[in-house]
Each structure stands twice: as C-alpha cells, then as structure tokens.
C-alpha cells in the first residue's frame, strides 16, 4: 500500500479504503483535510517524509492471539499484544478506540488511527509502575498500531517505555493516546536507541491532561537513523506538563521532536526542555510550539532548547515558538546552539585528563540535567548506560553514580 494515494480520497472513501469503523469518521475527515504529509507539509519540513509515503508497503498483519499475563512488563511485538503483564491496578485489553483528538495537527496521527482496527488500552486504576516493551521484528513492512493509556482520577503512575528488535527497512507508525484524569499524575519515560540499519519510526501521540493533573515526560532518543516523535498536549485548568528531551543523533540521520502544547485551562503550566547532541552530519529537530488560548489565563509556559554540535557538518533545526492570545501569563522561550565549552575542556585537561575523556565528561554533563529528571535511580543509571553505549560503542565508562554509592559505604563503615 502506498500512503500518498490516500490523498485522492474523501472522508467516506477513506473509511472504506482503510476498512475503518464509522466511529472513526472524525479521523477520516481530519485526514481528508490535513492529508498524508509530503515534503511540503510544514510540520515535516526538517524531515525526509517522502520515501515513507511513496513506497509501496506491505502492511503487517496484527495477530490477535491471547496474550500472556506474567511479570511487570507489557510486551508488544510488531503491534500485537503478546504479554499484558500481571500488574496490580492495571487492566490491559484490546478494544476499539474512537476518542480521537480531533484537533491534532498531524495527518499521520489520524491515518494511524484509521488503520488500527483495535488499540491496546491500558487502564490504570491504582498507583503503579510498569514497563512497556516494543519489539519490532518484521522486516520491510509497515507496522502500525495504537496504544492508549488511561490514568484514573487521583492515581499516580510511572510508565517506562523500552525498545528492541531490528525490523530492517520497516516503517513503524505508532503512538499513544494518553489521558491523565483529574488530580492524577503520570511519569512517562521513554528510552530508545535506534541503530543505523533499523526501521524508521514515527510516533505520533496526543496527551490530554485534565484539571489539576500532572504529566512528566522524559524522552531519551539516541539515534543513528531517521525518526520523528510527534506530540500534541492539551492542558486543562491547573494542569501541568514537564517535558524533557535528550537527543543524540549521529550518522547523518534526521531525528527529533515536533510538538504542540496547548494551554486550554486557566492556571495551567508547561515547561519543555530539549537538549540535543549532534554528531557527524546529523540533523536534530526540535520544532515545538506552545499555544496559550484565550481561555487560559494565568498560565506559565517555559520552553528551552540547547544543542551541541560535535562536528562541523551537524545541524540543529531548533524552532521553539510561543503563540499567545492573552496578556495575563508568564512565558519564556530560548534556543542556543554551540560547541563544547573551551574553558571547561581546558580545565579538565589541565588536571591530566586526556582530551577525548574530557570531551566525554562534558557531553555526559550536558546530558545530565535531562537524565536527572528521572528520579527512579535504577532507570536513570540504565539510561546513562544506554547513552554511553550509543555514544561510545561498547566503551565502558567508570561509574558516575556509583560515587554517591561508595560515599555512603565509606560513611557507613566509618561510623
């Protein structure tokens, strides 16, 4: 199936062609209007979308076998739920899903919904912490699926997302619809290393944060191949989002984040921070809009992007934007792109640390602020290790965090 041919169809024909249920007519009319993106589509301007929408894809079938239910991990393989886990307070099931974000800016978000017959729906009714593992193994296919997370009112959840599998030359089109209900909170942590020979992912998601609810997003993308994360967030009254993104891109790949945070409710707050490290010929993308609507008085919105270019051929497309329709708010945005700090580098070297090690220390230090947003120490260490593996191959760096650990040990055995 070629995706761009869908652009000739109106919404009814889209439903028919994609064999979607009529409950998704919202998505069909949105797609008919927005179209499947091409190289002229604004939100895709820094990315190579053309090859993905013009190729004739084999669409991967999604098996609906009964999933296992063991361990603390939900496992999804090539879009099929293979393990729903055994996690207290969580129900995981396949269901038709039609509560689609009609305001989304991304055509592929709607296409993905139209193509997915059922979504994997995770409902969190008690405080919990779990992992979702995505495995991609089908090669040269279009793997499309949707995941929904519902966090009930007053419930506090941490979800950690991990990835494995090669799925050479596939196109992964997926993403989340996440609902954080009143007075609830969700910490959502994503850590993804994408190798040179793997699939191209486009994760296109929406997050709805209800009044007084809190969403903390920490994303870690270490990429040697093209990929895009598309995010739309709605904030209701007194809702808050804290988004932090760490991006390492190498090998002439184009990878990044396109986001829109919409303040709908009064006194809602947002903070979005991106740090990007760009190596040989890579392009990092941070195309991020914060919109404050008329209804959103007394909001706070802060946005910042910092990038380090390690090679002269690297490039950062950093576009933080604020779109504000009211006066009564506190907002800021900024963007810097530069090299490693020469003074800091010299200071480390003047103590006998060789240049390559000093550079390494400074790069890890730059990343540190984002890793530190993960307060789960086990996960933070795991993410550090993943970053180091991505950046240095198998080169192992001595413990950073262990210093605190040893410190405690030393204190203890002296008491």
């Amino acid at each position: 199936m070629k995706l761009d041919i869908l652009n000739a169809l109106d919404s009814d024909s889209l439903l028919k062609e994609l064999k979607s249920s009529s409950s998704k007519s919202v998505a069909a009319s949105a797609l008919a209007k927005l179209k499947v993106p091409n190289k002229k589509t604004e939100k895709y301007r820094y990315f190579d979308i053309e090859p993905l929408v013009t190729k004739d894809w084999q669409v991967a079938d999604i098996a609906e076998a009964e999933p296992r239910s063991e361990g603390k991990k939900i496992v999804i393989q090539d879009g099929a739920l293979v393990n729903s886990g055994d996690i207290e307070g969580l129900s995981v099931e396949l269901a038709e899903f039609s509560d689609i974000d009609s305001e989304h800016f991304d055509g592929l978000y709607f296409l993905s919904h139209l193509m997915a017959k059922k979504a994997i729906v995770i409902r969190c009714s008690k405080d919990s912490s779990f992992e979702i593992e995505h495995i991609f193994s089908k090669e040269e296919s279009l793997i499309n699926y949707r995941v929904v997370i519902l966090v009930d009112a007053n419930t506090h959840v941490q979800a950690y997302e991990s990835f494995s599998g090669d799925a050479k030359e596939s196109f992964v089109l997926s993403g989340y619809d996440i609902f954080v209900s009143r007075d609830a909170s969700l910490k959502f942590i994503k850590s993804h290393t994408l190798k040179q020979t793997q699939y191209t992912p486009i994760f296109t998601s929406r997050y709805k944060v209800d009044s007084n609810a809190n969403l903390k997003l920490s994303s870690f993308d270490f990429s040697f191949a093209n990929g895009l994360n598309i995010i739309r967030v709605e904030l209701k009254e007194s809702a808050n989002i804290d988004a932090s993104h760490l991006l390492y891109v190498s090998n002439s790949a184009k990878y990044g984040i396109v986001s829109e945070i919409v303040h709908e409710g009064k006194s809602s707050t947002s903070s979005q921070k991106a740090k990007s490290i760009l190596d040989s010929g890579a392009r990092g993308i941070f195309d991020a809009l914060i919109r404050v609507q008329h209804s959103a008085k007394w909001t706070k919105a802060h946005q910042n992007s910092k990038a380090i270019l390690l090679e002269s051929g690297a490039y950062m497309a950093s576009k933080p934007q604020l779109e504000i329709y009211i006066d009564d708010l506190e907002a800021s945005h900024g963007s810097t792109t530069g090299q490693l700090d020469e003074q800091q580098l010299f200071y480390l070297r003047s103590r006998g640390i060789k240049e390559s090690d000093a550079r390494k220390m400074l790069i890890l230090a730059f990343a540190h602020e984002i890793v530190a947003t993960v307060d789960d120490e086990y996960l933070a260490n795991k993410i550090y290790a993943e970053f180091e593996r991505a950046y240095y191959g198998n080169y192992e760096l001595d413990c950073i965090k262990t210093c605190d650990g040893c410190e405690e040990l030393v204190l203890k055995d002296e008491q």
Partner: protein
Amino acid sequence: MSKVLEIKELKAKIGDKNILKGLNLALEEGKVHAIMGPNGAGKSTLSKAIVGHYNVEVTDGEIIYNGKNIVEEEPEERALDGIFLSFQNPVEVPGVNNAYFLRTAVNARRKHLGLPELNAAEFLREMKALVSELGMKPELINRSLNEGFSGGEKKRNEILQMMMLEPNVVILDEIDSGLDIDALRAVSEGINKMKDGKRSFLVITHYSRILDYIKPDYIHVLKDGQIVHTGGPELVEQLEEEGYSSFEEK
C-alpha cells in the same frame, strides 16, 4: 641547586597583544618562589603559558621542565608530568561530579606514574580526609565541579586537587584572594604540608599576608611582561612600603 623549571626569554601574546616580553625565571627544587607585580603585568599569562592554555600563544623562548622544552606539549601531558596550576578564577563545570572528576584526574596521573589506580572507596576515603582538613563542607564532594561554589570554596577545591594530584611544580595564582582568615590559614597549612624538599612552588600574590604563612625563598617582581627584580624574603617589606614604581623595567 637544581632547577626544576626554567623559563628562558619567553615571549607570549594573547590575541594581538604582546604580554610576556622576554621573561626569564628559574624555579629551584624544593623552594618557594613568589611573584608579585602590578595588575595586568602578565602574572596570570605566565602561569597559563606554563600549563599550555589555548589563549596564550608562545612566540619565542623556552619553558624547560625536566630537561625538555614543553612549549609544544598538550596541557594534559604537562599535568601528567607533574605541573599544576591553581587558577585565579577556576571555571564551573555543571553536571560533572566533583569526586568523579578528581578521581579520574588522580587515576590518570597514577597510571602515568605506573601506580595502581584507586578504587572509588579508597579514593573517597582520602578525599574526605583532605576535605575536612581544608575545612570544606563535605557536601562539596558530590556537587558539580565548582558549580555555585563560593569564591573561597573554589580556591579550597583547587588546593584539594593539588593535594590529591601530588604534582612536582605547584603554581598558585592568587590563591589568597577572596579567602577569609580561617580559610587562608587552612589553605596555607595544606600547602605547607605539601612541602617536602623536592616539590617547588610558584606563588603569585598581591599581599604579603600569605607569605607570612608560606615562607618564600625568593621574591620576583614581574612588571610589563618581564621579571625586573629578584631578591629574598626581605623584599616583601620594601614592596609594601614603596610599591612597584621603584623597580625599573629592564
């Protein structure tokens, strides 16, 4: 007396500006040399030239250390070979853990000397002992390197590094500026403890006070990019009374 570090006719510039103009200076083994001189004379530039700072371009002359000219050497090579500069203004390095940084540096030097590396626990035990000797807050061990440290805390952290790295030549660029009386005493005691009859010190200062604690063997007056006078400790008093104007440029 054997000379550990010998600077011969050193000329150096920063940008287009000539700062060092044929400077001569020899540090003797086990001795304390002090350099005094007016603001902007080139004292910090000299210290940076010795450690290989990227801003300072040596255009002529030699810096002989252990019998070889080190002008072309990388900063880390000079450090590994035992040259240490306590900076006038140490930079802040957010995100680099102070203990982790220092352990990396100490182990790099130990490896260079053919000594076994220290593991985290051994290292921390030593570091903690020195931290308390220097009257530093223990929490500084696990903070980011110099980030948000007060002026005095940064200076003490420099001395801590010096004590852990055990260099052969120690250059202290205004280690006394911004220190309160207790800190000055603690830092001076730390420095004195490191005197072992072999290690040489170059103390750059504007004030005689620190020289009451760290007794210098020689005083050099640096003016307009040259050493214009060298004398014994008695010179301090003369400088205090007369200032630098009585010392003519060569």
